[in-house]
């Protein structure tokens, strides 16, 4: 048996251990180099496991205590069985039985198992953890997850011509949920104003130094109305590595009339933040004061596609990174519109990048219909300015009302 083991792997090579009789040179030096080279691993190891933790002890070193404690274990767990046997109890009992069986097979073999990684114990622990996290049908769910992962890895998924990947979006929506619900305590109003089907243009105020409001709005639309929001972003977004790639995958595309009309005419829900960088990069002192609403391009797109405009008012994004300063010269050097200074950034370094936990309210206002106008009306600049002003005023008034409703920004 031992001879057999010795022939496997590295046995016999100078300076390398064979796990059973001669430790590696590295192990020898760890154990205090001067001691004899023939010192077996079994003696070197017993110091590691705690004597009062028989279950966690490594196999060969604490084999006897483990054997003794094994019968003691179950009786100690008996009292809780007095309560009704739930599914969890059953699962735990099954796991315990599995562990017991594993231990028996281990002890049944000839007593010369080498010290090493306790693989089966790790397996049992993983199984238990999986049970705890995923519930009792964890095997099925894990299999489904692995199948999905395999499909992704094999490239077996589809993206639309904008590069929108619904699977990734699904996962990201789940990932954003704690941030939106627990950190920002998001409240969503007027979700019924988002049409259940057909195109619509969501127009929102923009704030918060980092365009997190776009992410949260996308989350809110997906979570509460079940539709995918297709944000229209500035070209800078698509020039940035990682950001641009991710933006395309969650459905964003460039804010230009061609893309906006393509999305709206195919019945998608497009989102636009017409204030752009003027909105997110405004100082904290000017919070909730709407900036210029672009050049009204969004209205003409909606009119050409004959889809309603849904005004969206977002309260809470202004406080996440209060912008108190700006370094325009450095920003120009880096090719970005502004370089923010907040009370905590760059003072606290990466810690300063944690958004402050403000309370958020997103209200989807009543849709402004554009199908009353002819599509050719999109060429009438005065009409466009009027509708743009109407949308802007609606959002501004809603913002004031929501601010009163919210009260304190953080508590």
């Amino acid at each position, binding site marked *: 048996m031992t001879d057999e083991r010795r022939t496997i792997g590295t046995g016999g090579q100078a300076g390398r251990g064979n796990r059973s009789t001669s430790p590696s040179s590295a192990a020898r030096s760890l154990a205090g180099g001067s001691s004899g080279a023939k010192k077996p691993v079994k003696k070197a190891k017993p110091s590691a496991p705690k004597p009062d933790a028989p279950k966690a002890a490594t196999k060969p070193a604490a084999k006897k205590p483990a054997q003794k404690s094994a019968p003691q274990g179950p009786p100690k767990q008996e009292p809780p069985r007095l309560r009704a046997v739930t599914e969890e109890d059953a699962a735990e009992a099954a796991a315990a039985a599995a562990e017991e069986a594993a231990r028996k097979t281990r002890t049944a073999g000839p007593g010369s198992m080498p010290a090493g990684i306790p693989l089966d114990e790790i397996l049992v622990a993983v199984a238990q953890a999986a049970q705890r996290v995923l519930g009792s049908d964890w095997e099925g769910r894990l299999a489904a997850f692995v199948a999905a992962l395999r499909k992704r*890895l094999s490239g077996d998924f589809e993206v639309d011509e*904008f590069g929108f990947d619904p699977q990734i979006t699904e996962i990201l929506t789940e990932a954003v949920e704690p941030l939106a619900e627990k950190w920002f305590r998001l409240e969503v109003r007027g979700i019924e104003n988002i049409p259940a089907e057909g195109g619509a243009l969501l127009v929102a105020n923009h704030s918060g130094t980092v365009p997190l409001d776009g992410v949260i709005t996308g989350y809110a639309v997906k979570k509460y109305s079940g539709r995918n929001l297709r944000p229209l972003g500035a070209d800078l977004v*698509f020039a940035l590595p990682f950001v641009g*790639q991710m933006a395309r995958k969650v459905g964003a595309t460039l804010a230009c009339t061609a893309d906006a009309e393509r999305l709206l005419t195919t019945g998608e829900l497009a989102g636009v933040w017409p204030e752009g960088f003027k909105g997110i990069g405004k100082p904290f002192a000017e919070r909730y004061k709407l900036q210029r609403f672009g050049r009204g391009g969004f209205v003409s797109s909606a009119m050409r596609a004959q889809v309603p405009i849904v005004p969206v008012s977002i309260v809470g994004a202004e406080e996440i990174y209060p912008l108190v300063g700006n370094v325009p010269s450095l920003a120009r050097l880096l090719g970005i519109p502004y370089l923010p200074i907040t009370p905590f950034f760059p003072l606290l370094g990466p810690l300063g990048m944690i958004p402050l936990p403000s309370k958020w309210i997103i209200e989807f206002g009543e849709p402004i219909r554009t199908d009353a106008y002819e599509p050719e009306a999109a060429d009438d600049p005065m009409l466009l300015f009027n509708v743009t002003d109407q949308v802007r005023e609606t959002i501004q008034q809603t913002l004031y009302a929501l601010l009163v409703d919210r009260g304190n920004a953080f508590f």
Partner: protein
Amino acid sequence: MGRVVLVTGVAGTFAARVSRTLAELGDDSGIDRVVGIDTRPPDGDLGGVKFVRADIRTPVVGKVMAVEDVDVVVHLDVNPSDLGRRGGSAAKERNVIGTMQLLAACQRSANVSKLVLGSSTSVYGTSPRDPALFTESTAPQGGVRVGFPKDAVEVETYVRGFARRRPDVLVTMLRLAQVLHADIETPLRNYFANPMLPSVLGFDPRLQFTHLDDALAVFTEAVVSDRPGTFNVAGEGVMLLSQVARRLGKPVIPLPPLGFASLAGRAIRTMGGEMSPDLHRLLTYGRAVDIFALRDIFGFEPTYSTEQTFEQFRAGQRPGVLSGVGGKA
């Protein structure tokens, strides 16, 4: 009375296929003869195509056209440089000067009634300021200042100038996304043939491919019927580079965007290949075109989508090293 078709650049793999397809059509479709022209003899069999060895960068091309009584010119000698044979400046010379000489000859010729230009979607360039899909009227925002995209833009400008001067000649410009086929030499095919694919760190471009059958059918249609105008030709839909790499079972090597061109070129040379110099921009921002005009105005429905084109291409490829991990069966 059949027509005589002149195809330029027939030593190229794609032009050779187009000329052969046209020759095989025969008299039924009104094509009498197909004349192929290039500076070097083609590698493969040209079938019934009459090959003339001549340089379109010289006025000789005018004589060839006069002698052969050419009615239709299919200009396919606009190609990215293939590093193995010629450098970038030689490619520019061939693309731009060749086109100028050819157009000069066409303008002199009394016979020529139709010009079909095999252009490329490279004319749109590629930049982060581009719309998701290019239509035929979209102006390029960036990425057409150097290399092949610049050549393609200049060639199209000259062809438009020619169309203005000879309004009696029908001009069809076909902007093709790269043909993906094991036998057709294109920058992307060569790139996908590498065992590992250098990619730009943080970018996942959208790519579009044209199926060879569709490309041949479009050119045939343009020669046989009258379809003046400019049309995008590509398979429906897009694929991401990451998706393509995973399906091929080939690992991507993400390299930083700064200096990507030289790093990737070096990496590919180490693997024994060559990288087309204009590919790095495409691999950064990607490019996709709208084929609405091809469908509704030209009247051609591509048989294969981008994904189907790719799957057919993949079936003929040796599986990559990662196929065991996630490769599709």
